[in-house]
């Protein structure tokens, strides 16, 4: 009598070969590239289609926007406008971030400072800051100072809050390691709490920079006759939609550029921030 041993694999009909499982549609490499392209395609298609029903003055069209984008640089005001806008932007966020980190460290370190400054910081943080613009104008008049001041203000608060909050949220374990090894208060701050706060500080900087870009544009819409925001407003009011969208696209590119820079800095000097999680 022969003993036929059955193994687990023997559950399918003997004649059927096992087909390789295909990975789900959403995960395949091809989909990851094709899907967004398809979405963009659909978007552009709808856009063009809408051009049939609505006059293109109102909504422009993809090819038109592209032409306008190039034109803005070649013969349009994009370059000088950028010069002004970017200078104000980076000076503003530079000061705003620096001030935010410094004061954030003070507020994070000393509970008294947090208690005393807390109400003001929270009130200012809740307020939509562009309501202050008329006040800024009373102070320094219309001009580049008002805009830079505004960018400083708008980028300052998220950095401050995240820095202070980050210091509070430092993992208890790290602090105990420091204390165990005999670090005094000052050494603990320098060698443990500060480095451990860096992820939060970076998060704050990311937000501060993003808000700074918005602040730059808002400032220029309201306060000037130069710069990117001004032309965006001009084109918008003049129904020059193609050129308007081109500049908006440019503004978005600035935002993307900033993100890449911050990410680059983090990867170069603070690789551990993402890797350690």
């Amino acid at each position, binding site marked *: 009598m022969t003993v036929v041993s059955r193994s687990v694999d023997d559950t399918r009909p003997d004649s059927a070969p096992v087909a390789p499982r295909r990975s789900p549609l959403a995960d395949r490499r091809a989909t990851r590239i094709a899907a967004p392209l398809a979405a963009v395609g659909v978007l552009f298609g709808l856009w063009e289609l809408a051009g049939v029903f609505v006059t293109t003055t109102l909504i422009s069209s993809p090819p038109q926007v592209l032409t306008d984008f190039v034109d803005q640089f070649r013969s349009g005001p994009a370059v000088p406008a950028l010069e002004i806008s970017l200078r104000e932007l980076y000076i503003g966020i530079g000061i705003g971030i620096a001030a935010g980190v410094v004061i954030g460290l003070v507020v994070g370190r000393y509970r008294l400072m947090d208690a005393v400054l807390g109400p003001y910081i929270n009130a200012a943080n809740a307020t939509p800051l562009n309501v202050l613009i008329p006040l800024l104008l009373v102070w320094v008049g219309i001009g580049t100072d008002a805009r830079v001041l505004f960018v400083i203000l708008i980028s300052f608060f998220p950095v401050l809050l995240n820095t202070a909050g980050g210091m509070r949220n430092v993992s208890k374990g790290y602090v105990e390691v420091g204390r165990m090894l005999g*670090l005094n208060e000052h*050494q603990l701050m320098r060698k443990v709490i500060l480095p*451990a706060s860096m992820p939060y500080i970076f998060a704050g900087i990311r937000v501060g920079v993003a808000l700074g870009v918005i602040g730059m544009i808002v400032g220029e819409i309201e306060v000037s006759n130069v710069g990117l925001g001004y032309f965006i407003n001009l084109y918008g009011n003049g129904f020059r939609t193609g050129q308007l969208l081109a500049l908006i696209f440019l503004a978005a590119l600035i935002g993307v550029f900033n993100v890449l820079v911050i990410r680059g800095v983090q990867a170069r000097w603070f690789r551990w921030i993402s*890797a350690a999680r």
Partner: protein
Amino acid sequence: MSSDMTVTATGSGPRSSTAATPTGHETILNIENVCKTFFTTRRTVHALDRVSLDVRRGEFISLVGVSGCGKTTLLRILDGLDDCDSGTITLDGVKLDGVSHDMSYVFQDINLLPWRNVLDNVALGLEVRGVPKAERRARAMEALELVDLASVAKVPPYTLSGGMQQRVGVARALAIRPKVLLMDEPFGQLDNFTREALQVEVANLWEKLGTTIVFVTHDVDEAIFLSDRIGLFQPGPGRLTEVLDVDLPRPRTSYDVRAHHRAIGLRALITEHLRGAKAPTG
């Protein structure tokens, strides 16, 4: 510092040690009537109730008990990470107040600082003690060699496996050449195989260095494998109720722990003792 280890005379079973140390055992750490209570919004926890213990120089003593019975709390108080409400702790005749420079601690969560590489993590304690740079590196490398990780000195700690990270944690604690090493369930987060390997490593380290080690664990077998004595904790409120000798010859193997008659007897005694414990009450 050579370990003060003697092969005890055969007896019918494990012996109970009293606080009064028999001749030949010098006390390095004297814990006297330590009490500690915690307040949370929900309840008050009596973590430690008049705990007293004499730790002998060079011994390996484990503190064993169910979770939440106060053994970790005691360890933290020893190192100065927490304060006790009353009682005194004396190290080599000096009363302790806050963090001691002669003791170090190995955490269950390991907690290597991710912004420093392995070597700098190990050297941190030396930085604090003002050791000059070159000597720091040398001593840190020395500590890493003790745990066989000199090869990864320059890597970021998060690239290491859990077991390797904890070995770095041990190296970090040893680099400052402590009189007493406190270990808080150091292998609790690791898988069984790594845990057993590290138990052997710790046993070898202890033989080599002769440092006094106070080791907290809820794993009875681990305690039997490693220790000279085992202190039993009961919860609700946390008390040290018994200290037993581990009369197994060294070097020990895991077989000894499971099959040696004295180990079996000891484990039975411990289990009975702990099982008689009430559930932790507020």
